[in-house]
């Protein structure tokens, strides 16, 4: 066996490809029973596996495929017709063969499985045709004679010998033009070789080295036209080589898509549904490692679409739709990324059911839920533990999945979004990068260091001007934000964050890179974009220079455990730039949650009086309240664990002292929400010391758009006014804070 090891491995690889082909052929055969090309292709595949198993002495495999071949032979010869029993047993045979091959791969033996029953049922199915069975209910199977006769005719004309004697290897019929599938396999095996992936990786590394050498060559100034010509040529060849080397990692997404027809068929059968799968763009190419990482998420989305989306045939007919649901799987290239769409024409997602469910699951308060748009409600589908299915099936509906799908896709730098039309269907769009080995990135400078930011997350760049005209960072101390078209976006000073400089030299200089990660938007304050190396005056380069395609190199566990670097890349001059892991950075920066609400206040100008502006917050129970901004000294993000009970009140430790904390809901005499994992503290300066108001979310800062209405004053409220186009309650700080039964100066 050891001598055969190499051949066995080749046999295994080839057979698993053949089995995938078999799945496809069987599905096609179900659509067009008696198709002679398909039958011939299936027969050949099974025959090849049978022949090889005999050669290697795999007796179980031999016996099983022999029974299968016999059945297929009778089918091909028109002795029996295709019915559910025949297809069922053929599918079972494919599964059994796969199982045996897996066992051979892992331990070199055929395993413990007993397939004699299956072999018998294959033989029984083969004998069936002699006595007509009552199992055929499909219209195609019910009226088989013409198709079958036609089939025999075609085969007969194509190759007399094949139909006359079923036993000899049907490879004899291979050269006939009626077998496009076989024809393409032959071409593929002749024009491709199997190469170890690590070899491709080292070629890519060497090409990277060559690119660096090329860059150094180009930086040498010379007047010699001969050297210039060679330099040009090397430049062009290196570019082409790099492009080609990267392509070696690419595979058509068909490698993944080709598995789905079987998944869809099996699932549809088990759920009693009819589903027509349409695949488009299977030749779209994607990095092979990424194809692996999207396999599970896509499988899950397809199962979901069939289980929850597509209705049963009766329901569909009642709704005036065709009996069979249509599931469209489409892949295409779009702006340097691959987009995969999964579209069904099923019932769609019931927005109101989702809203009710979100409230029932405690994900949101009824008041807050009623304000959410349909798109916002759909986002709950990606929350852990959320499922709109009323019945739990063994397929899906257990509420695990969509959150995992989303996080798996996001882990490889992709996005998932969802659109639904109730009654008409749902489209899920998955976008993933072409490859993780190279990516477009923005190279930025920060305290003399060059860092790379994956371009996929970059929204826009905002220049800060020292004269404070234009956008500026608003100094809510401890929680800096920038206002972008009415939205408040939290910002992180990269130099401070990385500990590169003790304090930001000036908070009003530099560039803000607006980023979006996992639906959260934040800004990263940097010094500028990478400067052109040769520029003497050190002016930042144009954007086009900083945006480059970088080769991502792993940095190993010692550096990746820091949690803020996704890798490193080698720059043109041989220097190294660390690639920021934005998700990790966001997690570590622990930014306050600022709800992204479009504010009507666009003018929000520099000269505005602070006294007219309010900080809008959402409380744990979903109330929208406002605090005059001039009372606010800072915002903090705390966890429930940070709160400590002292003298019957809650406090949070700050340095050597304590800041007492009051929940806004309790201040308003309402119910206090259950403790949340993370809270936002609005710290107020009062004559008696600072006090923290605990809220769930900081929404916005806005100017009052109406005078204060005091006629609806209630406990703890001063009244209400219009902020950002919405009536908002204003807290009565003077009364409430003075009413608190403790003196903060006593504890600090």
């Amino acid at each position, binding site marked *: 066996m050891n001598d055969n090891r190499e051949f066995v491995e080749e046999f295994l690889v080839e057979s698993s490809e053949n089995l995938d082909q078999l799945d496809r052929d069987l599905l096609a055969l179900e659509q067009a029973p008696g198709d002679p090309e398909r039958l011939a292709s299936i027969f050949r595949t099974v025959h090849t596996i049978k022949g090889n198993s005999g050669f290697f002495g795999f007796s179980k495999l031999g016996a099983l495929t022999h029974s299968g071949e016999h059945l297929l032979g009778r089918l091909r010869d028109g002795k029996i017709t295709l019915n559910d029993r025949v297809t069922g047993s053929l599918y079972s045979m494919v599964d059994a063969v796969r199982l045996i091959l897996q066992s051979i791969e892992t331990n070199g033996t055929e395993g413990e499985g007993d397939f004699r029953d299956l072999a018998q049922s294959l033989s029984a199915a083969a004998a069936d045709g002699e006595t007509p069975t009552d199992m055929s209910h499909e219209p195609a199977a019910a009226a088989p004679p013409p198709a079958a006769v036609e089939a025999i005719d075609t085969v007969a004309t194509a190759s007399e010998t094949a139909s006359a004697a079923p036993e000899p290897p049907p490879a004899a019929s291979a050269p006939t033009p009626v077998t496009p599938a076989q024809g393409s396999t032959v071409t593929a095996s002749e024009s491709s070789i199997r190469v170890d992936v690590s070899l491709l990786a080292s070629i890519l590394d060497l090409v990277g080295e060559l690119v660096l050498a090329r860059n150094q060559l180009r930086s040498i100034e010379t007047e010699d036209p001969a050297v210039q010509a060679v330099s040009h040529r090397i430049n062009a060849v290196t570019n082409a080589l790099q492009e080609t080397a990267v392509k070696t990692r690419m595979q058509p997404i068909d490698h993944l898509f080709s598995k789905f027809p079987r998944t869809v068929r099996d699932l549809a059968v088990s759920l009693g549904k009819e589903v027509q799968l349409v695949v488009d763009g299977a030749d779209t190419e994607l990095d092979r490692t990424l194809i692996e990482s999207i396999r599970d998420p896509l499988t899950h989305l397809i199962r979901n679409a069939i289980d929850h989306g597509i209705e049963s045939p009766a329901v569909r007919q009642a709704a005036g739709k065709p009996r069979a649901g249509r599931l469209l799987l489409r892949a295409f290239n779009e702006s340097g990324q691959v987009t995969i769409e999964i579209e069904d024409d099923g019932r769609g997602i019931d927005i109101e059911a989702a809203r009710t469910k979100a409230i029932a699951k405690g994900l949101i308060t009824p008041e807050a839920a009623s304000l959410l748009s349909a798109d916002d409600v759909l986002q709950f589908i990606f929350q852990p533990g959320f499922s709109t299915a009323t019945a739990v099936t063994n397929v899906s509906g257990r509420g695990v999945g969509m959150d995992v799908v989303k996080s798996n896709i996001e882990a490889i730098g992709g996005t998932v979004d969802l659109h639904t039309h109730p009654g008409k269907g749902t489209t899920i769009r998955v976008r993933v990068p072409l490859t993780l080995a190279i990516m477009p990135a923005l190279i930025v400078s920060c305290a003399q*260091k060059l860092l790379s930011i994956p371009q996929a997350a970059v929204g826009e760049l905002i220049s800060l001007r020292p004269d404070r005209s234009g956008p500026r960072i608003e100094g809510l101390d*401890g929680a800096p934000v920038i206002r972008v078209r009415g939205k408040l976006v939290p910002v992180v000073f990269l130099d401070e964050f990385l*500990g590169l400089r*003790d304090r930001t030299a000036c908070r009003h200089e530099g560039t803000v890179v607006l980023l979006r990660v996992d639906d959260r938007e934040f800004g990263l304050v940097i010094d500028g974009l990478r400067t052109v190396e040769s520029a003497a005056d050190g002016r930042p380069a144009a954007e086009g220079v900083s945006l480059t395609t970088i080769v991502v190199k792993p*940095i*190993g*566990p*010692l*550096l990746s455990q*820091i949690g803020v670097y996704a890798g490193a890349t080698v720059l043109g001059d041989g220097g190294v730039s660390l690639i920021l892991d934005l998700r990790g950075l966001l997690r570590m920066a622990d930014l306050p949650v600022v709800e992204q609400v479009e504010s009507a206040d666009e003018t929000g100008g520099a000269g505005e009086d602070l006294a007219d502006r309010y900080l809008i917050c959402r409380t744990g129970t979903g109330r929208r309240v406002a605090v005059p901004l001039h009372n606010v000294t800072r915002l903090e993000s705390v966890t429930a664990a940070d709160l400590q009970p002292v003298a019957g009140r809650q406090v949070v430790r700050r340095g050597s002292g304590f800041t007492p904390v009051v929940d806004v809901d309790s201040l308003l005499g309402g119910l206090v929400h259950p403790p949340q994992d993370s809270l936002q503290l609005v710290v107020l300066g009062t004559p008696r010391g600072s006090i923290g108001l605990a809220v769930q979310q900081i929404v916005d800062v806005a100017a009052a758009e109406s005078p204060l209405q005091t006629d609806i004053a209630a406990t703890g409220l001063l009244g209400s006014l219009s902020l950002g186009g919405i009536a908002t309650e204003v807290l009565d700080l003077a009364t409430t804070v003075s009413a608190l039964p403790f003196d903060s100066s006593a504890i600090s």
Partner: protein
Amino acid sequence: MIATPAKSPTDLEVCGFLVGGHCFAVPSSFVSEVLHASGITSVPLAIDAVAGLLHLRGQIVPVIDMQRRLGLGDGIAAGGGLLVVRLEGDCYALRVDEVLDVEQIPMDSIEPPSGSRIDPATDPRTGVFAGETWLVHLLDPQRIVVPLLRQRVSPAAKTAAH
């Protein structure tokens, strides 16, 4: 280098180096190359013992400052040498004050590390032997690196970021 006739199975080939005035050695089977320390890129937020990273023919290699790792100094500011060691597929560069020669030493001349309170989880010393001019501490490269993998970013760096 000592003139030994041939590598005998009872001999261990080691690569010696100096850190903070002490002499150390690692089995040379771990060492893939020796370089002058230059072109090291610093890595913000990395633990103290990590001096930065090095670009080595397409590969990114973390640099471990042996003065800090062994608690023998505040880090090597300039110069010195790099010993590139390979551990289970990952490469690490050990930054040392000076790289010494490769020597063959008889296995039976290696004694247990001096001082009985060596914690194998954090201390990389596995033995000690008398070199020509120095007392040489033998180190296990695995135990130089592995304890660092458990350490997290120092909380001070994180607070400073706020």
